């Protein structure tokens, strides 16, 4: 078996794929293009999520080695956190941000977009 994505990138892809197959990407994300990065720091690589006009792309960013590297990318927001914070949800992420364990740029947009993707993971 040949897998083109595994792990976190595949999980994000899966949510977007379900929106696309039911023709809901455009409705869920009318303000495109969207470009954001999710970096689960203990489960690399970081991924760039691109959504545009009813389609999407997931790009693995092998070159991201630390959170500071995210500043060099052209994106509207990012989330960089260890998996344990992500599993516990938005409240834990906000607490992690205050504690310096989680880094976010444009968090309201991040929560909105990831929330829509996760709701269809099933």
């Amino acid at each position: 078996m040949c897998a083109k994505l595994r792990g976190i990138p595949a999980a994000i892809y899966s949510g977007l794929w379900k929106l696309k197959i039911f023709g809901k990407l455009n409705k869920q994300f009318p303000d495109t293009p969207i470009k954001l990065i999710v970096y689960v720091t203990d489960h690399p690589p970081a991924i760039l999520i691109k959504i545009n006009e009813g389609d999407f792309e997931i790009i693995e960013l092998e070159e991201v080695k630390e959170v500071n590297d995210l500043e060099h990318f052209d994106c509207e927001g990012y989330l960089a956190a260890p998996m344990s914070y992500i599993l516990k949800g938005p409240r834990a992420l906000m607490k992690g941000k205050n504690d310096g364990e989680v880094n976010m740029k444009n968090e309201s947009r991040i929560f909105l977009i990831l929330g829509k993707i996760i709701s269809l993971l099933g």
Partner: protein
Amino acid sequence: MSRMSALERILTVLEGNIPDRVPSCILGGDCDFVYRFMNSPYALTEEDMFQLDRDKISYATPFIHAILAKFSSADILPGGINAKIDMCWKLVGGALINLDFSDNILSQSGGAYEIFVKDDGIPHTWYMGPELLNKEHIEIYWEKEKELKPRRTQFRDISKITKVMLEKYDIVISWGTAGPFENCVLGIGLANFARFAKKDSNFLQQHLNFQWEAFEEPSLKLMLKAKPDVVMCGDDYGYNLGLQINVKHWRKFIKPILAKYVKLVHDEGAKFILHSCGNIGEIFPDFIEIGIDGVQSLKPQNNNLRMYREKYPEITLLGTIDDSKMLIYDSPEYIRNSVKENIELLGKKGGYIPGPTNFLLDHPPENVVALFKAIQEFGKY
């Protein structure tokens, strides 16, 4: 007899009586099936989805309630394909945990799952294996009791979802939970189960008791607060030729906990269905003893369905339509004839709810439609 609702029909069968016609059931389907369905002539249309969205019907895999609603008649959903489904499934609850000795995110059982995307672009979720590989791992897992406790919010919408599917689409949702065998074996592995059962039975019992107390009983209690009509517990005991474990070990370790599941569900007035793959004929007498109302899956190649029907009339047989070969490779006409024969063999006196033996994967949608249309056509009493 006047036309029954899906709920009346399902409950009538599970109570051992004869309904207006043979009801049908399905577990759901994964992304492979969704892809095929949405690229078939039966695909959900904009108009369908307008109504389904308004009713807040879930599109989530593998339960695909939105696609199952499409099988309704046109008076329920304007684009309905009139191949009625009476009962579906939805698993509820389940935590994800992180353990220091594993790189994977684990399910509440301690097993690893992975989502991956094949070259064809279709995502899949697969069980990758047990991660609690020795006593030390298991003891570290026990320390996660707090994280394994079910969250109330996971069970919040059960009543609402059940009500809409029932009242608007006439489909019963059987609420799902994982059983004690799967919760144990998916975490520690079959080899460890057998080893502990033989050489360290106290430790195995301690682990089973931990899972019951940490999340199995609390999950069931939260689910039952929503007053479901039917609960279906997934617990795969069989392989093609028999049980995966020694029957003595099943009776010693699994049966007592399964009996607690059944009692809790019955005490709340709901029916209890067990989903188990494989050949499980050896423990049918035990199912009767602990009061299980129905058994789902029952692949005909692995089970003597005629014998079950004659010897155990107390138990409703669900599924029985082979999903691994016939539903994938044979023609709609062949499937239609097979359903007719099955209903004649198993459903003459009630006690039968046919449907695919497992989740739909790479099944041609036209075969699945043929299956449910045939149940409708030949299921009249």
